[in-house]
């Protein structure tokens, strides 16, 4: 900076005036993404929220006016309560299993040397290339009454079991679909660790297990946290898996929304359920985020 005082010195003509301008570059750079977000996410969301307050006439199928009856119906009806509880139970279970499987998987991956690491990373990511619908059908063929799993059970003398259309099946299939979303953030945060830190723990006589629990795990907690949020959010709003593997009876929230829109044609009701799911999801995720990250912000930055 020059030695002259820009505040007091009058700007001579032709010279650039040292005025503090509003920085426009960030605006231009984030503009396209913001516009896209507004057009594709906020607008439909806003319209859905509006729709959820409309009245619905069963006789004519017409909508309009203003009412809170859909919300009241959802909140007071035990049928909906059960579906919400089931959705969050299944999602929480799928998330927990993803943590238990995905974190060690990411750790092992990070310890591999290169040809193998790339191969296994590809193996973990490859399922993402196949449509969720196809994978759900895969599970239903595998677990169906005539599928190979039941075939094996019969051959072992255990007998045929009803595997499809149960919560367990939905959880297993969700874990299968969601696992990459846990492995990737954890793997990324493992990449950022200084290997010397784990070595330091070993040098003080810590066993490998102690070093992992006391030194590695706390450092990758932010990665586990973001993985959990992604998995939970995607599971709670999952549609294809519960739709295809949960059958008619085992409904989750997303399948109920679908039913309201396309079977009952009660769009405002479907919209109200969707808005409540969004709100509940947000509250659960924010609370979880607060709880875990608040604890670690000061330490890990």
């Amino acid at each position, binding site marked *: 900076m020059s030695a002259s005082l820009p505040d007091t010195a009058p700007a001579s003509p032709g010279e650039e005036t040292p005025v503090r301008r509003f920085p426009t570059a960030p605006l231009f750079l984030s503009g396209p993404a913001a516009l896209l977000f507004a057009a594709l996410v906020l607008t439909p969301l806003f319209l859905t929220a509006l729709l959820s307050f409309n009245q619905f006439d069963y006789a004519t199928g017409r909508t309009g006016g203003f009412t809170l009856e859909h919300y009241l119906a959802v909140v007071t009806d035990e049928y909906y309560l059960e579906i919400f509880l089931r959705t969050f139970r299944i999602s929480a279970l799928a998330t927990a299993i993803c943590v238990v499987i995905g974190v060690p998987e990411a750790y092992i991956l990070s310890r591999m040397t290169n040809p193998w690491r790339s191969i296994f990373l590809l193996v973990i990511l490859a399922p993402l290339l196949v449509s969720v619908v196809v994978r759900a059908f895969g599970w239903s063929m595998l677990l169906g009454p005539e599928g190979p799993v039941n075939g094996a059970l019969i051959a072992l003398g255990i007998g045929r079991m009803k595997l499809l259309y149960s919560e367990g099946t939905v959880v297993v299939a969700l874990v299968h679909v969601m696992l990459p979303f846990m492995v990737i953030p954890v793997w990324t945060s493992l990449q950022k660790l200084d290997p*010397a830190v784990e070595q330091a723990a*070993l040098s003080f006589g810590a066993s490998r297990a102690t070093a992992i629990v006391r030194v590695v795990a706390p450092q990758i907690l932010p990665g586990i946290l973001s993985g959990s949020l992604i998995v939970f959010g995607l599971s709670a709003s999952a549609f294809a898996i519960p739709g295809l593997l949960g059958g008619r009876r085992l409904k989750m929230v997303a399948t109920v929304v679908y039913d309201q829109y396309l079977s009952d044609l009660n769009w405002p009701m479907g919209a109200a359920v969707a808005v409540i799911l969004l709100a509940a999801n947000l509250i659960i995720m924010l609370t979880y985020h607060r709880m875990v990250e608040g604890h670690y912000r000061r330490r890990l930055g």
Partner: protein
Amino acid sequence: MSFLELKNITKRYGPLTAVGDVSLSVEKGEFVSLLGPSGCGKTTTLQMIAGFVEPSVGTIRLDGRDITRAKANSRGLGIVFQSYALFPHMTVFDNVSFGLEMQRVPKGERKPRVEEALSLVHLSPYAKRYPRELSGGQRQRVALARALVIRPPVLLLDEPLSNLDAKLREAMQFELREIQRKVGTTTVMVTHDQAEAFSISDRVVVMEAGRITQIDQPYRIYEHPETEFISRFVGKTNLLPGKVVTATGAGATVSLAGISVPVETAGLSVGETVTLCIRPEKLHLTAPAGGLLTGRVADRFFLGSQWLYHIDGPLGTLMVVTPNDGSTPAEQGAPVGLDWSPSVVRVHRGAMAEAPDVALEVTG
């Protein structure tokens, strides 16, 4: 037998030999420094002793036990890593306490020991902070406290003081030396600061491109460097190419660009090409005609306790260091004489290597 013994240790990374055929014996309670330019294999050597890098060839013995393939967590060494490797999610106190916890020291005993270690490195007020809330030098001292607190039989220090200011560094050097004297900890320290290596080590190991080129007491390394590389790397030196003109049983005369100077090295043969090394502080400034050479002050630098002169003369520019005794220094451009005693001249056989590599001249 020595306490820690490295025998023909080699570490290869693909085609690169990071450490080649290193043999070193360290006695119990000894303080040994590894000194050498960046990338010469100091850290790799230390990591092999620590057990984080497996030697390609060779054996390491500690207290009579072959530990070459032993697990790192069974060696019981105290280590300061070059990157500090603090536990970022633990407070300073917990970082230091971790080693004691692993040794199953009872909780009541841990606290006073951690506090003692922290006060040793002047960090008592920082016990509750997290590493990311500390400066580089403070982190380094946490690393040091963490290694000292477990009172290990062997301390491996990888540039443990590189980030401290001169005063603190001196204080820490003193502490290290004290601990080592009192407790008798065997210490291997990596450093590229030769002043540090000299002031606190019993012996200094000079490494060059993965190999050990000299193991000796600090003063012998300085006064009798075995290679021209060492004389250039360790301290400042004047290198003068010459030819032997006469040789007797006890000494010789060397001609430096037509000027004959006596040396006290025996066994030289007439006509041989040699390089003379004279440390700047061994040269004296005299009246213009009173020395072996005459010259002119090209430049002078005030170093506090000393003056450093660059003297232009018939042999090129020579460095001279004189103590600052309070008298008026020689002026720039003034004619001076240069004198030295034949006993301070070190003779290396063979021609001088390429011009001194500035990058390798570590100041200290």
